[in-house]
Structure formats: structure tokens, C-alpha cells
């Protein structure tokens, strides 16, 4: 993984978040408190503005800086969770390097583990983890089976989409929607949606190359 790729991914994510304003806003209005889009936008804009500072850094340093910046920019639950993801991913990349798909997948998984710990949540609780856990698992499996990045990317896009859709029928047991009980059924979790969009953005960038 190169810092150049991280910067391009940040731009793709920003464009994708901006393009999905109405989707994210309406999902969060239905079962949240309506601030998810604006928080994600603030985070994405801040990282893109950081380009000059990130460019000279190694990939792990860049990811760590992104995590620190998100921690002081986003707020809400998304801030500490996404920050924990990037900071833990950076730590594992620094220790093991990122010169193979398996190593990148392992670093990604470490990031997801950090979210599990910080959020004290797991799969099936109607959160971003319903997207991230299956994607991390699938990524680790595929990384040992194939070196075809297009195949991996397409598969992860599908996995993320399925995970996002799976939140629709769940009762929320973590996060702001947890107070809703059965009233949350039928609504996709906004955090799962934004994670799916981010994964799709990064995977599409790989496919375009």
C-alpha cells in the first residue's frame, strides 16, 4: 500500500459521501438524530484538506495521522470508532509492513477489532460492524486464496452491500437507535450505510487502476 493510494481513496470517499447526502441524512433522521451525514462530511473534508501534510508520510504514518485528525474532528460515536480503526490499522502496518494483500487484510482486521473493543459491539447489533466484520473476514480469506485484486475488490463490494442490507431487519442493540426496539426494524443503519459506501469507494479505486 502506498500513501498516494490512501490520498486518492480519501478523495473518492469524500466525493461518495457528498453524493449520498440525502441517503445518509434520511437514514439517520429515521432512526438516529440526523447528524451522521454532516459529521462524515466534516471528517472527509478535513482529511482531503490534509493532503499536503500526508503526502510525505509513510502509509502507516498517514493512516495514524488520519485517525488522530478524525478523533478531533468528527465527534459523535463515529469519531472515536473510525479513529480507533485507522490508528490500529496503522499500528499493525507499521509492525508488519503492507507489502502483501494478506498483510493489508490483517491490518484491516486489526482496525475492525479496535472498533469492536471501543464500541463494545459485535455483529448483528445494527451497526457499522455488520458491514466491517464480514468484509474483514472475507478480505482475509481472499487474500490467502488469490492475488487478483479485481476479484478481491468486487467480492468485498458485494460483501459490504450484503452486510449493509442485513441491518434493515435487525433490532438495534447498540448506538442511538437502541432505544427504538422494534421500531428500528425496516430501516438500514446509517453507520452501516456510510461504511459500505467507504468500502465501495476504495474498492472501485482499485478496480479503476
Amino acid at each position, binding site marked *: 500500500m502506498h500513501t498516494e493510494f490512501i490520498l486518492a481513496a480519501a478523495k473518492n470517499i469524500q466525493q461518495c459521501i457528498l453524493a449520498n447526502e440525502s441517503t445518509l441524512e434520511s437514514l439517520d433522521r429515521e432512526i438516529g*438524530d440526523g447528524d451522521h451525514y454532516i459529521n462524515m462530511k466534516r471528517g472527509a473534508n478535513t482529511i482531503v484538506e490534509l493532503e499536503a501534510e500526508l503526502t510525505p508520510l509513510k502509509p502507516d504514518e498517514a493512516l495514524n495521522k488520519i485517525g488522530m485528525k478524525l478523533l478531533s474532528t468528527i465527534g459523535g460515536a463515529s469519531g472515536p470508532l473510525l479513529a480507533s480503526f485507522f490508528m490500529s490499522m496503522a499500528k499493525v502496518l507499521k509492525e508488519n509492513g503492507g507489502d502483501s494483500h494478506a498483510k493489508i487484510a490483517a491490518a484491516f482486521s486489526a482496525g475492525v477489532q479496535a472498533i469492536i473493543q*471501543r464500541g463494545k459491539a459485535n455483529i448483528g447489533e445494527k451497526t457499522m460492524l455488520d458491514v466491517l466484520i464480514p468484509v474483514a473476514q472475507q478480505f482475509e480469506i481472499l487474500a490467502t486464496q488469490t492475488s487478483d485484486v479485481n476479484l478481491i475488490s468486487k467480492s468485498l463490494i458485494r460483501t459490504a452491500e450484503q452486510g449493509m442490507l442485513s441491518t434493515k431487519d435487525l433490532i438495534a442493540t447498540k448506538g442511538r437507535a437502541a432505544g427504538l426496539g422494534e*421500531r428500528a426494524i425496516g430501516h438500514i443503519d446509517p453507520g452501516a450505510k456510510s461504511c459500505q459506501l467507504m468500502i465501495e469507494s476504495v474498492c472501485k479505486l482499485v478496480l479503476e487502476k
Partner: protein
Amino acid sequence: MKKFINNVDNILVESLSGFAKAHSDLVELHLEPNFLTRANKAQNKVAIISGGGSGHEPLHAGYIGYGMLDAACPGHVFTSPTPDQMLMAAEAVHADKGVLFIVKNYAGDVMNFEMAAEMLPFENATVLTSDDCAVINSTYTTGRRGVAGTVIVEKCVGSLAETGADLKACKALGDKVNKQTASIGVALTSCTVPTAGRPTFDINESELEIGVGIHGEPGRRREAMREADEIVGDCVEAILTDFKIRDIHPTNKHEALLLINGFGATPLMELYLIFNTAAKLFNLQGFEISRSLVGNYTTALDMAGASITLCLLDDEIKQHWDSPVHTAALRWGK
């Protein structure tokens, strides 16, 4: 959306600046990261710090001052503050007796304060407020939300801290007051988050939302609008049931503090009407409402509606509720 706005991105800083100017004898505003402290730093006491999303004014900055908070960290509207704010605030106000964070129980607030607490280089503890009985607590949920009862926790803990009590004692009192307090809210209209520009939820003229949160989160159920006594009756029953379920009982004197809190767009006239009914109903259940507070203390922007909070008093809580306080939003005895 019709609001007093210059630029939607500057609302928070312009409002905080106005607050700091209006109360320059009490508070000092620090920007980037944003936090407010007492104008005169207190010595020899546990530093009490709270914070949370903006839009609930006067919570929390309105409670900075003698007898309550040492600092407050305002986040964006309805969004928790970030750890750098808490760290800088703690750095500014701690006086070698430790820092106590008072945090409303929401996933975002809890995580941001937790990360700040982990990074803080000195002794600290956290009281989580969770007085909202609209959210039925179970092992499956993040737990109950912290709402207007937070004001009572901040008042009592702030009072104890002024006596020079240690961190452990302050935390214990905060936990106790939280346990002895239950709230439930009712919304008649939605609120509009300025950056979103449209109401958070749709609710028509003939409906009300029972158990609404202070961010416009949906509550227990949507109902047809009814007369005030019936609505208040349901709220009183929810509160009493909650104490029963949690096995919390009043002292022999059955004394309680009744707080009727407006969400931002309900006139005081109606809040007093609610107080009148609620006090009567609690009296009928054997409670003596010996302390009261009516007004906008934990708002939800421009939501119409109100919450009812009952805090079961014992001598200790009563003493710390009555003690002098001098803040922008609460002031007596000094």
C-alpha cells in the same frame, strides 16, 4: 427553516461567544478546541467537567460557576465533543484533586470521554447519567439515555466538590443522585438541526411522541394528542413504574424534587400547568414535592414538549441541592 443564522457553519462559535460575553463575570471561552471554564479558577477541589452536543442550552455551559461545573466542552449540535476538548479543559481547571467527568449516557459521548480519560495524565473518574426511563434498560441496549436529570447530578456533585470532598466521594454522590432520578419526555413537534435545515422527524398536529429523547430520537410510542392531565398522568406512571422496576424506594419522609423541563419551544405557562398536575399526582402517590424547578434547563433546540423528572431526596441530596450556586442558569443562596 426560519432561524437566526448568519452562516450555518458559524452558529456554534457565534453563540458561544455571545454566551461568554453575556456572562463574562462567570465564564471564559477557549476556542479550537472549544471549551469554557470558570472565569476564576477554583483551587483545592475536584474539578468537575461536563460536556456534550450543543443544542441543549443552558446545558452544560450554563452550569459553570460556583457550586456546579468547573468546565464544559460543547460539541457540534447534537454531536458529542472530541477528546482534545476534554483534555484541554481538564488541563486548564484541574487543581490536584482529580477530575470528575459527568457524561450523559450516549454511545458517542461515552466513547469520546472514555478516550479522553485514557489519555489524561492525572486521576479521574466518570459519572454516567442515565435518568431517561423511556428507554427500557436491558442487557441488549447501550442503556438508558442521560437527559434533564443530569442538571440535578451536576448541581449536587458540584456542591459536594466545593466542600473539598475527594474524587471518590464526588463520584459516589453523582452515581447515587443518578440512581434516585427518573425522567420521561414528551414531544409535540420535532426540532430542526440547523445544518440539516429540516425537521428531524415528522409529527402532525394531532399527534404526540411519548418518551422522546433530547435529540428528537423517537420514543416509546406515537399517540393521538390528548388533554394535558392524561399525558402527564402517563408520564408520572412511567416514572413510578421505573423506580419500582429498579427497586429504588423513597425515604420515610417520601420527599422528592420535581423538575419540569421545557424542550425549547413550550411556554413557561404550559410548563407550570404540567407542574401543577404532576405535583398533584405525585402527592396522591404519597410523595411530598419539597423541592421544585420549572423552566428550560435541558432543551432540544426548538422542539415543543417537556420532560418530567423526579428525584427521590434524602438528607444528603437535599443539602447539596439547597447549597449556594452561582451559574448563568441556576443561581441561589449566593
